[in-house]
């Protein structure tokens, strides 16, 4: 800008006050906000401390080592009322993890099948899947859980238990089924199963390489199934096929022997699985439909078979749409498992509440529960983010 130019323009001088400086204002607001938050946190802390002292409630996490004095109906690790609160909470965590893990696997399978069925050209399958989705996702998950809990509670008593097969019972005590008695030979069966899995992966890899080299397609599904099932079977036969079933029998008012799933576990699992499965079905449907029709037309015009189109064209492109929202569903399923507290499933919240009531240390008990859920959720997120990075396809 030239001097002459400047002379022609009448510049109005504004205020030179710092308060009208944009940069200064930006910083000032942030400092004020930070100060307010710190002050609020301090006041809260003071208040809690003062109140706890007034009511003579201890603080800190020492209670975790004290004897809990309560029993838990369903435990994956050894536990009795002589054990500590810490161990009780661990039992709760294990129960939460087991129902959430089963739920995630089942909801994924159910959701994928229903999602594919919804876009299928089979009218009946599509209608059934739509019905499932609309019913299950429009009913609060609490009702799902309570509904299944009451269904199971209304099953016949053990004496009149439904028995679809010899030794298998469905009663208001849960689902009771025979299991093989433990036997040292089974260690080798497990080892053989692991070896079979490794071999199956190796075979798959080899088949793919072979195909790239010669162009010959080798079906891997049946050979792989053969290896995975056959090896443990062989290991079992070689050791003389030891098998003693522990068959449940009615003794008095309940069953002895066998293994069982408790009514609470089944109800919670079915409830959260059906609910989340409906959302996953919609996600899968959206993912498949997000692939442009032109992609499929181009593949068909090239003469590629329908199964291959799904595997090489549709699925890879759908997966990147499916994975991120599915992660959210896994997280909400895990957190929804805390509804177990409503129907008496001893999950983390259930055990945590009992602990809270007995010790009165609400802040610490809640903190433990929050930390555990946060930990589980972050772990799921991390795992799914890594998976997402693997399937996220490169486009440029």
């Amino acid at each position, binding site marked *: 800008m030239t001097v002459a130019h400047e002379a022609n323009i009448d510049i109005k001088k504004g205020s030179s006050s710092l308060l009208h400086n944009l940069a200064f204002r930006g910083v000032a607001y942030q400092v004020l906000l930070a100060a307010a938050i710190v002050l609020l946190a301090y006041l809260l802390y003071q208040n809690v401390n003062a109140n706890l002292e007034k009511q003579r409630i201890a603080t800190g996490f020492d209670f975790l080592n004290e004897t809990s004095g309560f029993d838990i109906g369903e435990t994956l690790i050894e536990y009795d009322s002589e054990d500590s609160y810490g161990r009780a909470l661990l039992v709760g965590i294990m129960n939460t993890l087991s129902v959430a893990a089963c739920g995630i696997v089942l909801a994924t399978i159910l959701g994928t099948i229903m999602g594919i069925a919804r876009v299928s050209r089979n009218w009946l399958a599509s209608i059934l899947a739509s019905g499932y989705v609309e019913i299950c996702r429009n009913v609060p998950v609490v009702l799902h859980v309570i509904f299944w809990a009451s269904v199971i509670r209304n099953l016949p008593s053990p004496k009149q238990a439904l028995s679809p097969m010899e030794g298998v019972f469905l009663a208001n005590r849960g689902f009771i089924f025979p299991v093989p008695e433990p036997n040292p030979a089974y260690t080798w069966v497990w080892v053989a199963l692991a070896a079979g899995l490794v071999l199956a992966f190796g075979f798959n890899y080899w088949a793919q390489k072979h*195909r*790239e*080299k*010669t*162009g*010959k*397609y080798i079906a891997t599904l049946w050979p792989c199934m053969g290896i995975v099932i056959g090896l443990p079977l062989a290991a079992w036969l070689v050791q003389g096929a030891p098998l003693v079933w522990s068959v449940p029998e009615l003794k008095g008012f309940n069953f002895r022997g066998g293994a069982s799933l408790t009514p609470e576990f089944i109800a919670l699992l079915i409830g959260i699985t059906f609910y989340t499965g409906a959302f996953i079905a919609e996600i899968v449907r959206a993912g498949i439909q997000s692939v*442009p029709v*032109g*992609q499929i*037309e*181009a*593949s*068909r*015009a*090239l*003469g*590629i*078979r329908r199964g*291959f189109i799904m595997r*090489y*064209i549709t699925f*890879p*492109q759908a997966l990147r749409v499916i994975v991120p929202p599915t992660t959210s569903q896994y997280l909400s399923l895990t957190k929804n498992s805390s509804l177990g507290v409503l129907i008496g499933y001893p999950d983390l919240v259930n055990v945590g509440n009992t602990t809270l009531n007995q010790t009165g240390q609400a802040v610490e008990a809640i903190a433990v529960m929050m930390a555990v859920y946060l930990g589980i959720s972050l772990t799921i997120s991390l795992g799914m983010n890594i998976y997402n990075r693997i399937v996220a*396809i*490169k*486009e*440029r």
Partner: protein
Amino acid sequence: MPGARKTRKKNETGETIITLEGVSKWFGDFQALRDINLTVDKGERVVVCGPSGSGKSTMIRCINRLENHQRGRIVVDGIELTDNLKNIEAVRREVGMVFQSFNLFPHMRVIDNLALAPMLVRQMPKKDAEEMALGYLRRVQIEEQAYKYPGQLSGGQQQRVAIARSLCMQPRIMLFDEPTSALDPEMIKEVLDVMVELAEDGMTMVVVTHEMGFARTVANRVIFMDDAEIVEIAPPETFFSKPKSDRTKLFLSQILTH
């Protein structure tokens, strides 16, 4: 269908390779094709033009069964298109198609786009398929882009890749559905050049396009379609200078006067 092909003499002129007899098609109540009769000879180049919605795309999409016809017969390379999946697959192996919107697979590199179908459909070893892919990319003068993703290429380059991808299946017929309509003007020529070269090599081509220059120089016959039916079929010289139908005249006056 190698067995079917052996019985026929190769490169015989005047040999019919596509036959449409009384083909009709409806989308719901809307009739998209009305009693279409057309034969295309081996090595012939046919350009299809007409106003939008006249059924040109639908007609060529029936030739490789991306759309099914409801009445009449379609025979391609001696194979009749019916609901028989084997027939459909056999026809699709012989017929390549290029789309207006390219439809390259965005998640695969250019070379993988080209090698995929030969590997899956023709059971070709990966190394051979890639070698062939590079050969066709060289032919459409785009070999240096082989290891990029489609999204990194310009429209004209993408369409040339799409043509090369079809050629990798070594088709006997190529269908083009408005191959230059989605391109910027300066990219149209590079695609048309490839198509002209293909025509010179003797490929049987059915091309839906509004590029009248291409029709004039390359086509053996020009077909004008309007309102779901074929209005006029003529060699380009007569088609452009002495169109018979008034509808053709109107159409030509609309697209040639600017």
